[in-house]
């Protein structure tokens, strides 16, 4: 066993203190028939004896490097994948700081006297999220954007009360987020009802009005920008909804909050989303950082951990987890959620990243995404590749109609370019309507040359 701390002499000494003859004796409480014939082959390659004793660090490096080499990544590959997960340039400081053992190997800060570092960092994270979203309160983070969406649906139901109707889910919301929300609500609530999108890819306000009249829904959940990269007019959505009762939950790309007005000002009641692009690599989808913010009046219905400022016995400012009577370890079956963690280290990455960018750097991030996308769509248009939903407001991502998509997609891959997400594959229920649709996103690693190469390969059959 690696990391072995006990010597044979230690083991003898300890068994003597315990009064046992062998380590096996300590397992005597397990019925013998449950201990017979236990084998657990681990599926490792190579000679059996090596599998039994485990691999060395050096062998692990070789093995995992080979696995990594089978995945397309920068700089060999250039990709235009988005759909809620966005590549970004991460300052070296982020990784170095989160590897500090005092952050990496500490526990949930239930003992505030010896967890002030984590607690203050959470407090700073909560402050940043409220300032980005314009909301009054934010929690310490959730698993990811999709589960934050599901938890927002559950919270909206609690606020609306038992007599309210179903949750409305915009059909233009990220398909994974819709799926996860449906799974969470499946046995707990009324099934959510889908709100269609228009020819322009935006929420269908007429359909929404009808649903509001017929169903008395508790909340509307809408992507902002939505899965097609369109910045929905939250203020107009607010106007067609009744003043009271119905909550707007905005599923928000936090980098868009550099350029666009806060969802709070536009009428949202709960703002959640996925913040991984602010300091955390794509990691094949996780661990990421769901954020969760709302108006203060809903605080007691919020899921997840919250850090609050207080004082110590000497009167000094300090921090502690607070309002935990909402949580499962106190309330058990009456808790606001079963969640028992947050994404501590990833939220810390976000906090460090945003500190490094600062007010201006964050603006530049948005400006870079917006400018790269505008250049790309202009150049694609010149080659006759049209942006679908062209009349709608975009930020850093959009759907493009690429003739002979399958062929051109493969040509791009042959040139080590992954040109985007094929909507017909990602969302099969969209069917033939989206047969040649490609969701293309830009990110700050892109240069003009990268964009030009993409335009070239997508506009020809060769």
């Amino acid at each position, binding site marked *: 066993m690696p990391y072995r701390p006990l010597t044979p002499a230690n083991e003898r000494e300890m068994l003597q203190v315990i009064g046992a003859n062998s380590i096996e004796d300590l397992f005597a*409480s397990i019925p013998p028939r449950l201990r017979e014939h236990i084998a657990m082959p681990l599926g490792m390659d190579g000679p059996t004896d090596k599998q039994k004793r485990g691999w060395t660090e050096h062998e692990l490096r070789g093995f995992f490097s080979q696995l990594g080499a089978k995945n397309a990544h920068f700089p060999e590959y250039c990709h235009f994948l988005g759909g809620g997960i966005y590549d970004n340039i991460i300052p070296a*400081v982020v990784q170095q700081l989160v590897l500090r*053992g005092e952050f990496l190997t500490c526990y949930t800060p239930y003992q505030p006297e010896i967890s002030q570092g984590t607690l203050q960092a959470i407090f700073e994270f909560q402050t940043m999220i409220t300032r980005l979203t314009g909301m009054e309160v934010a929690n310490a983070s959730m698993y990811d954007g999709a589960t934050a969406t599901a938890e927002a649906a559950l919270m909206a139901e609690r606020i609306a009360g038992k007599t309210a109707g179903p949750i409305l889910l915009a059909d233009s919301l990220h398909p994974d987020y819709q799926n996860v929300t449906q799974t969470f609500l499946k046995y707990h609530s009324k099934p959510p009802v889908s709100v269609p999108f228009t020819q322009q890819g935006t929420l269908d306000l007429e359909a929404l009005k009808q649903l509001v009249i017929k169903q008395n829904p508790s909340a509307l959940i809408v992507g902002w920008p939505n899965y097609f990269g369109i910045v929905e007019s939250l203020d107009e959505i607010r106007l067609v909804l009744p003043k009271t009762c119905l909550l707007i939950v905005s599923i928000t790309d936090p980098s868009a909050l550099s350029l666009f007005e806060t969802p709070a000002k536009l009428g949202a009641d709960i703002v959640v989303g996925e913040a991984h692009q602010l300091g955390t690599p794509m990691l094949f989808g996780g661990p990421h950082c769901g954020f969760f913010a709302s108006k203060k009046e809903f605080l007691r219905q919020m899921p997840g951990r919250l850090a609050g400022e207080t004082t110590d016995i000497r009167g000094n400012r300090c921090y502690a987890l607070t309002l935990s009577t909402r949580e499962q370890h106190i309330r058990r079956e009456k808790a606001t959620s*079963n969640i028992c963690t947050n994404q501590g280290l990833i939220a810390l990455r976000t906090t460090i990243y945003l500190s490094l960018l600062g007010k201006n750097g964050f603006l530049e991030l948005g400006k870079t995404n917006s400018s790269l996308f505008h250049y790309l769509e202009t150049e694609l248009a010149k080659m006759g590749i049209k942006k679908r939903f062209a009349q709608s407001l975009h930020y850093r991502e959009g759907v493009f109609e690429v003739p002979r998509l399958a062929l051109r997609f493969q040509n791009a891959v042959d040139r080590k370019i992954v040109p985007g997400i094929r909507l017909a594959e990602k969302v099969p229920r969209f069917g033939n309507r989206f047969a040649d649709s490609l969701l293309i996103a830009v990110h700050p690693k892109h240069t003009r040359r990268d964009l030009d190469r993409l335009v070239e390969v997508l506009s020809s059959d060769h």
Partner: protein
Amino acid sequence: MITEKYQTLARQGIALTEPTIFERSSSERQSFALAPLDVPEYLPSQYRRAQPAELPEVSELQVVRHFTRLSSWNYAIDLGTFPLGSCTMKYNPRINEEIAALAGLAEIHPDLPIPLSQGALEVIFRLENALCSIAGMDACSTQPAAGAHGELTGLLLIRAFHENLGGRRRIVLIPDTAHGTNPASCILAGFEAVTLKSSSDGYLHAETVKQAINLHQRDIAALMMTNPNTLGIFESDIAEIAELIHGIGAQLYMDGANMNAIMGVTQPGKMGVDVMQYNLHKTFSTPHGGGGPGSGPVAVKSHLAPYLPGPRVVKTDTGFGLDYPAQSIGQIKSYFGNFGVLVRALCYIYRHGETGLKEVSRTAVLNANYLKSRLSEYFEVASKTPSLHEAVLTDQRQIKSHGVKTLQIAKSLIDEGFHPPTIYFPLVVPGAMLIEPTETESLEELKELVNALGHIADLIAKGDTQFEQKPHKPVVGKVDEVGATRHPILSLDDRP
């Protein structure tokens, strides 16, 4: 009684004060900048933000110092023994961090075409196989992001299983020793949680389950038990309980939070368990990171496999592919779970091999039993029943003699340089202190912990009254947690 001269491990070090990062801000300062644009600048035409978000404006060194100072206020495994019961705070090997940061495993988008993500899919496939093998189960999904998320997934599988058989069962039985997440997950899955009383010796007896079955019959969807339970006791009736539960067509869920005690010794699959969740951040050493990220894969017997969350990674003629099972409960998290955590866990498993993993559990149990034997000299042990990887002590002796409670003992331990045990849990033991040393602590460190706790017990026995105000040594004194709740200040902008 500690006879040797006791010396506390805690020392006053250099603890520098530090305001929030916002209070270090100075207008127009910036540390990290993107390259200047090589395309024309373009800003959106509508909905432009009137006021930029007030983020701190600080230099790179200010950022490094700020967070380094903050870090120095945390206790961590890297600083000392962390006997936090049920949390398995073992050493987090650094090779795992190095491997998880490889560009080919970190900088990859989950929507990559399948041929371009074969390595990532292979990691998931291999880990799912290893987790099945360790537990003696048939299929596994790594999608759940944490233990509680895995519990919810497992319960949804049970729900789907019963519905497919045409039944709607209402009740999940949960022993009173369970984690709070268990009943909370039940509610989310649309079940009603019914508590079962464990006996005074810490077990859940088959007889208790029989009575519950007599009462609720086929309204019972499942029994959810933690094994070893939260007292560190192996539920020796489990195979019999499994038969009873299966006898009424219900399912046995096992919370696998305590797998660190039994790897290579016994297997949930052998006990009759139908579904369980792992906590990779416990058993397989992935860092707790101050509260996440975790990972809570579920492993099932074959009859529940059709309901597992999709997409599932499958082996194909050309490598690895994805499958969306028709009867699946659906997605429980976007994409494939906390992949970066999965990489670390696989690395840990392969580093140990089969023999090494068995040795992990044997050593964890030896360490825990040593601590229990030594500490029983100073504290009441909650149960006479043999325990495995953790032990529960109580404050009953100290309360009776001098009115000193578990909370005060825990806070005193901080002053001796240790993280306190898990306190007041399990709920069934008044004044519980749940101690789990894990296998990576050396005998010297265990002795230091015994000395520290023994020293505290001695002080109490001598009638020392200095316990109300503890701890004294950390960067902040006793924190007013009630005050934090009364007037919540949850962001800088809430400050009066």
